[in-house]
């Protein structure tokens, strides 16, 4: 029956959507209970909620909805609409609910989280940033209180005590990256009592599409301090004299750069090498390559900012300095050298985790967002999540005007400014969505020249942004912002703004996915407010030049096509990354299970006693069983961790060139997996033998083992960061796709 329904949906071109009819019945029934529930006093209300038998079935859900509505009324003075209860039910069933801005997602999410908590499950509500996590937890605290459910939140600056306490709460709000970092840090502990993150149960994800799709492949990295990584200043100096087209060339899409003959010759002279590509110069070549990348491809104020003597990456999609992000593999150091800044600390990667794998740890996942339908296929493919499209409480009357098309960027700019001037004269609030921070600044400058005052959101802090964006609906306000800035905050119309036509959203260019366009449009027209949106597109926009470089005139089809190409590429990259990550994920889970056993059981002494029985016996009689066991455990944990990080490095290296296998008509993914499995099998053996070796040579005192002397050093400092999408890796995936198509084309003819 289910499959039949799925078929019909596929036929209607709406795969992966949920039928709301059963939810509607429950909400209707809950509405009938409203008066009865309202008669209960606070104590009785809480008692009724906690008395609900678990797990919730239809009858309990009806009662829960009715009670939750009453609780929200009393706690916040807000009566949840029927559609909000629909969203609650969709979340409780483990779906992604799609409802527009201003439809009260936060409250719906809180009720759903409480619903899970009342059924005895721990809920992690994942937000996109610290500000939203803290705000939502505080804002919704009264609701949770009525249910007797404990709530907490953490952020970047939380101490480990704070974290431990927060994770103990029934419901915890946290930025998704913080949870990931905690999981990563936990895998370094040497004492079971140090583990912070409890077993994952329910993840409720806010802005689910951006977390699950846009950021899914961003790796969170745990690094340990290593020998300082210095980009040789001489390379950066030489690089400054290099000119495009003479010493190096940049490809059309500004995705990669390489030295010309002349550039290579100059570099060789400076470094005193005869052949940069000869054996044994890999290190030097790598340094040159990263320096070239930093010099030729990364633009100050577009890709990064220099502030307080530090390089800050600009998150392209949010237009915000991503405090926690770093470039991988020496690129960070190369950029610092380019800007003549002191090198920041760096380290070896101990482990990493993608957000997709983090989410995959939770047996129950649900989420909410304003735009999920467009990625329903991906949510289904990668997370087995269905989308529930929640209707708006009041019909959206926003007017989405057709795109305005221009031949040149200049014409487009002028038209945008003219449009803003005109709309502003009527007192209409205007929100301008730009593609990046640099564009925001440029536009703001132009507007100021026209004598218009405007607020610019650029990489400032989240709380300030929220305050600014909240006022963007006031009469006469002009706000310039990148697409993601201030997400999660409603724009309410000020006095007189509705009469002027409501919020006018202007996009200065289409985004690489129609879903992102819709997010911007969705800023206007909340709760039946009037509003309008329009996008300005020119033939010189990056979207068009990058994806439809051959087009000579612009049409609606060209724009849509460019966007579809971009979406297709992103999907392919996502799928590629996921394909490669799946196996690594599986291997990691094996290693972690093993590590956990080493940590909690007496497995380590057993293994070492098995490897070198004499030495173990000798040590045990010398220092006693307790010290010997502890030493065995520490040594084995160390070697396991080291082998794993070595394995990860090997896989990273393997990954880099695996696409070349296509040339021999092999499937790169299969080849990768085969090599990865072979390498993985070595870990166990290596851990055993190295541990036994270390144990035999270790110096023991009454206090325990002197690990320092054995060359075992726990990383003195660890830190965590997000890797900015690997600039080389994604390229490899793209060639892979292209080569694959060529060869497969040949293969098919062959068949």
């Amino acid at each position: 029956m289910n499959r039949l329904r799925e078929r019909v949906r596929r036929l209607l071109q709406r795969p992966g959507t949920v039928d709301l009819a059963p939810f509607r019945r429950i909400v209707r029934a809950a509405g009938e209970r409203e008066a009865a529930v309202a008669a209960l006093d606070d104590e009785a209300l809480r008692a009724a909620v906690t008395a609900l038998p678990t797990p919730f079935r239809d009858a309990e859900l009806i009662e829960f909805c009715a009670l939750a509505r009453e609780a929200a009324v009393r706690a916040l003075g807000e009566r949840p609409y029927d559609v909000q209860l629909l969203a609650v039910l969709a979340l409780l069933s483990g779906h992604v609910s799609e409802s527009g801005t201003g439809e009260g997602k936060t409250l719906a999410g809180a009720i759903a989280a409480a619903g899970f908590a009342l059924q005895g499950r721990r809920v992690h509500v994942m937000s996109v940033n610290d500000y939203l996590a803290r705000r939502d937890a505080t804002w919704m605290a009264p609701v949770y209180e009525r249910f007797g459910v404990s709530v907490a939140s953490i952020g970047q600056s939380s101490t480990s005590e704070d974290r431990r306490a927060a994770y103990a709460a029934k419901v915890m709000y946290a930025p998704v990256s913080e949870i990931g970092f905690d999981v990563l840090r936990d895998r370094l502990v040497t004492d079971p009592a140090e583990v912070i993150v409890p077993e994952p149960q329910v993840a409720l994800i806010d802005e689910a599409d951006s977390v699950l799709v846009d950021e899914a492949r961003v790796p969170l990295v745990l690094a340990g301090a290593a020998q300082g990584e210095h980009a040789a200043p001489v390379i950066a100096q030489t690089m400054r004299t290099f000119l495009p087209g003479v010493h190096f060339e940049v490809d059309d899409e500004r995705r990669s750069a390489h030295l010309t003959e002349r550039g290579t010759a100059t570099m060789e002279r400076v470094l005193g090498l005869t052949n940069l590509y000869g054996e044994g110069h890999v290190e030097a070549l790598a340094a040159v390559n990263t320096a070239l990348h930093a010099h030729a491809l990364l633009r100050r104020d577009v890709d990064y900012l220099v502030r307080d003597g530090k390089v800050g990456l600009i998150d392209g999609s949010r237009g915000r300095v991503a405090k926690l992000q770093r470039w991988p593999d020496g690129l960070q150091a190369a950029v610092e050298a380019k800007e003549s800044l002191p090198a920041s600390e760096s380290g070896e990667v101990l482990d990493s985790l993608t957000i997709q794998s983090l989410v995959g740890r939770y047996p129950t996942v649900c989420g909410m967002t304003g735009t999920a339908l467009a990625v329903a296929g991906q949510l289904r493919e990668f997370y087995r999540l269905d989308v529930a499209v929640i209707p708006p409480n009041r019909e959206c009357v926003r007017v989405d005007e057709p795109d305005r098309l221009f031949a040149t960027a200049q014409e487009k700019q002028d038209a945008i400014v003219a449009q803003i001037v005109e709309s502003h004269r009527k007192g209409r609030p205007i929100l301008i969505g730009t593609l990046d921070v640099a564009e925001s600044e440029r536009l703001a400058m132009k507007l100021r020249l026209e004598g218009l005052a405007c607020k610019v959101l650029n990489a400032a802090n989240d709380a300030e942004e929220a305050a600014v964006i909240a006022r963007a609906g006031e009469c006469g306000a002009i706000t310039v912002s990148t697409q993601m800035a201030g997400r999660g905050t409603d724009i309410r119309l000020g006095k007189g703004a509705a009469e002027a036509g409501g919020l006018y959203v202007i996009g200065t260019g289409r985004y690489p996915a129609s879903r992102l366009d819709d997010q911007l449009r969705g800023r206007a027209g909340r709760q039946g407010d009037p509003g309008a949106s329009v996008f300005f597109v020119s033939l010189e926009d990056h979207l068009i030049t990058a994806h439809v470089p051959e087009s000579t005139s612009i049409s609606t089809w060209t724009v849509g096509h460019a966007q579809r190409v971009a979406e297709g590429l992103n999907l392919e990259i996502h799928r590629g990354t996921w394909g490669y990550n799946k196996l690594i994920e599986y291997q990691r889970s094996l290693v972690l299970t093993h590590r956990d056993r080493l940590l909690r059981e007496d497995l380590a002494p057993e293994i070492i006693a098995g490897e070198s029985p004499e030495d173990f016996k000798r040590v045990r009689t010398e220092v006693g069983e307790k010290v010997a066991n502890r030493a065995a455990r520490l040594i084995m944990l160390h070697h396991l961790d080291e082998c794993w990080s070595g394995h990860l490095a090997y896989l990273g290296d393997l990954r880099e060139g695996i696409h070349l296998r296509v040339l021999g008509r092999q499937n790169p993914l299969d080849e990768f997996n085969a090599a990865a499995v072979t390498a993985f099998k070595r870990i166990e053996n290596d851990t055993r033998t190295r541990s036994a070796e270390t144990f035999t040579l270790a110096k023991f005192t009454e206090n325990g083992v002197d690990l320092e002397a054995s060359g075992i050093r726990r990383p003195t400092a660890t830190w965590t960061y997000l890797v900015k999408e690997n600039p080389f890796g994604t390229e490899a995936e793209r060639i892979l796709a292209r080569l694959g198509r060529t060869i497969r084309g040949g293969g098919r003819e062959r068949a």
Partner: protein
Amino acid sequence: MLTAITRAFRTPDLRNKMLFTLGIIALFRLGSFLPTPGVHVSNIQKCLAQGLSSDAAGVYGLINLFSGGALLQLSVFALGIMPYITASIILQLLTVVIPRLEALKKEGQAGTAKITQYTRYLTIGLAVLQSTAFIALARSGQMFPQCQEEVLLSQDIFPLIVMVLTMTAGTSVIMWLGELITDRGIGNGMSILIFTQVVAVFPQELARIFRSNTFGFAVVMVVGVAIIAAVVFVEQAQRRIPVQYAKRMVGRRMYGGTSTYIPLKVNQAGIIPVIFASSLLYLPQLAATLFGNTTNPNEVIRFIQTYFANNIGNAYYMTTYFLLIVFFTYFYVSITFNPVEVADNMKKYGGFIPGIRPGRPTAEYLSYVLTRLTAPGSLYLGLLSLVPIVALTLVDASQNFPFGGTSILIIVGVGLDTVKQIEAQLQQRNYEGFLR
């Protein structure tokens, strides 16, 4: 390989996948025997037997080989997987010609899905054409010119339309079966079905050889197994050119270039040169049949008739065939592997062959290795294709010696790919004894 399969059968989900694939293959074979309504089954069998023992046995044998014996029996699956393959080739060529299709292809998965949909429509169109043509042939008695029996029960238009519809529907079902295998079974559906078609005629052919000449049968078996072993060996042979990606690993030793390499296969071209060469050599045969019945054939036609049509076990034919294959091997390799493109590609992403500069020097090096490697590759393909002809002359076996070059390449190619896929899937699940 056998251990891989037995182990796969012990892994539940892999076992299910394999059983599913086998089930589909069984269905596919069933449909190849199932006669289309309106066919006179016993008459067509008689005509077929007669055809296979006549002068034109070569042509019938070839058709039988590629349709798994279904076409000449006018079964429900008479058209086999060929219309689908033809359609996908046509659409691939069209994407080069038609900008809108090219644009669709660029749009990634969504676009490809649309192209696949077009391929399916075209397949149906081709199926209608082909089935109509074959039924028209059968109706006029030209399918088996020597046979006097009536192969159709009725000459009326309505039963004929039903036959066309049945065969077309059969083709659509085959298409679906192939996609089912790709989706839920093991291996690539299209290849598996071709493999099935090729292997399907083996028992029949071998039985025929056995009946006519027991000693010949023994020789054929020994030679066949030896050839298969040799082909498996050569197909897996590759030259690995090490490639390094200059990327810095902090605080970690660099791993050598052992795992990053370009695998250049000895038989980089695969089966296409053989197919090209034999189709090209089929043209004179065709010309001879078309014009050869004139009472006074001219020199050229007589030459063709003597050396290229009736008896191909002669030096002229064999030399031409061999040279064509060598030529097409080089030709095809030069098309599919462009050293300049590969070198550019590596240069762009920081890869290099140790000791060799990126760009032109790398392209030259690749080209040098490739040329040297293609030499044995092309000789191998040429020799392999001559085997059935030589066998024919030596042992006097039937002309459709089943271990011919084309069929062996298909069998070994698909077989290797599939086993490799099973092994790959097995490997990911099988961590026996690890860290427990």
